[in-house]
């Protein structure tokens, strides 16, 4: 986090607090990443036990969110941060909300994995789900990386990959819809698979949000809901 000079406040205590908050967010990111990874694995390998484990582990994510939130409120109240410090705290509050949602999606996948393992039904779309899952996982990892390194370029490039995920998700949905029309007896299983695909797609959206917060944190500009080309031309560093 060199760009923000978080360790250069006159108040050492403040430095420690910010450092601590940043580490906790990264730890939470790691945990969430692991949850998504394991949820997906449970789903693909019809591992009901692992799925159950993922579903029950979500409370850890939730607890971390509450803790970090509390710490951010303390900093706001006691330090009255301004400029980059203020943007960091606001970004952290927002990032952990998205991370918590991602955790919820992982929990969802874990529970569906349990159901699907019992019905032994997920095998049919394993390939498509794996492809979507891999895209989502790498995007989440890159988004968290961009946050950790405050890399605006990486953040913008990562956010752009949401298009691929959406496309993949659309394809999978079409397949599932066709299958559903052909074989209405499997509607319960197919719907669950659809929900899982939907969860993965949502994780992609949350990753985009994280990328956008990184741009706000570093550049001080809110790029949500503005034309993506404009964002790219404005913030992407030109190759030299």
């Amino acid at each position, binding site marked *: 986090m060199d760009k923000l*000079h978080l360790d*250069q*406040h006159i108040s050492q205590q403040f430095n420690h607090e910010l450092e601590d908050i940043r580490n906790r967010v990264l730890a939470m990111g790691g945990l969430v990443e692991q949850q998504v990874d394991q949820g997906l694995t449970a789903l693909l390998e019809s591992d009901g036990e692992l799925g159950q484990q993922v579903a029950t582990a979500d409370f850890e994510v939730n607890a971390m969110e509450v803790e970090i939130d509390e710490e951010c409120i303390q900093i706001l109240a006691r330090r*009255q941060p301004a*400029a980059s410090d203020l943007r960091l705290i606001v970004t952290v509050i927002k990032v952990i909300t998205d991370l918590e949602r991602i955790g919820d999606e992982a929990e969802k996948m874990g529970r569906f994995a349990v159901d699907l393992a019992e019905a032994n039904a997920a095998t049919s779309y394993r390939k498509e789900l794996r492809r979507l899952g891999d895209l989502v996982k790498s995007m989440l990892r890159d988004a968290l990386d961009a946050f950790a390194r405050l890399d605006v370029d990486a953040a913008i490039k990562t956010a752009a990959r949401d298009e691929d995920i959406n496309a993949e998700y659309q394809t999978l949905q079409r397949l599932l819809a066709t299958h559903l029309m052909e074989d209405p007896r499997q509607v319960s299983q197919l719907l669950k698979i659809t929900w899982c695909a939907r969860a993965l797609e949502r994780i992609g959206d949350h990753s985009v949000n994280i990328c956008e917060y990184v741009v706000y944190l570093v550049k001080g500009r809110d790029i949500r809901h503005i034309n993506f080309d404009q964002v790219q031309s404005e913030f992407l560093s030109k190759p030299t």
Partner: protein
Amino acid sequence: MNTKSNTSAASDAFDNLKETVGVVTVDDPKMSARNVDVFYGEKQAIYDVSLDIANNEVIAMIGPSGCGKSTFLRCLNRMNDSIPTCRVTGEMSLDGEDLYGAGLDPVLLRARVGMVFQKPNPFAKSIYDNVAYGPRIHGLASNRAELDDIVISSLQKAGLHEEVQDRLDAPGTSLSGGQQQRLCIARTIAVSPEVILMDEPCSALDPIATARIEELIDELRENYAIAIVTHSMQQAARVSQRTAYFHLGKLVEVGSTNNIFTNPRHELTENYITGRFG
């Protein structure tokens, strides 16, 4: 820790500072300064500062001690004239009239550009006489009734009338610190200035009295152009619409208060308002 490189980076940023970041001008300025240099003897206190002060707006000037913000403020009504070694170059104007030219008398200027000081400094006179002093020396009231009107309306505008209406004959120094400062503001308003300059008006006051003064500043904004120097960044953030950051005699950055406090553009401004090594 990497303080050394940061400090040198900051001083590089300062040395490379050619011109102020942000827009120093406003449409229809009340007062404006262009390329102002101020010297105390051989020592230069202000380097090439240009800044406009707009009507119905509070502009806050912040910066570390000795950055020249107070000096700049005091140039705006020529309070520095009394320092023999002080020399001001560049252009400063009020409604387009040159401040340091032959046309504008300093006494007249100070009647139009009032000043409130860091330490509440009521005269050793009654509350009434404190407020009436300015109108008396300028002959603004032709009889006692008119003077009464000016005094009462000034006290009302300063939000002090209710508290002191029963004891207008009491000495001004018998009031509390916050009341004294509001008395000083009433005294300034009584001369009907167009611009009010405030030099750290709340630095000697407790938070409640400070909040009252800040509320008053916000009300006064409706009718006056206000420039305030403050050491409290929170205060600058609360009361001002525009903020100017001074550093070692240079005006580093000017911008809307909203921007300065969330996303300053210059590294020095950022360092100062976030409390980093600078």
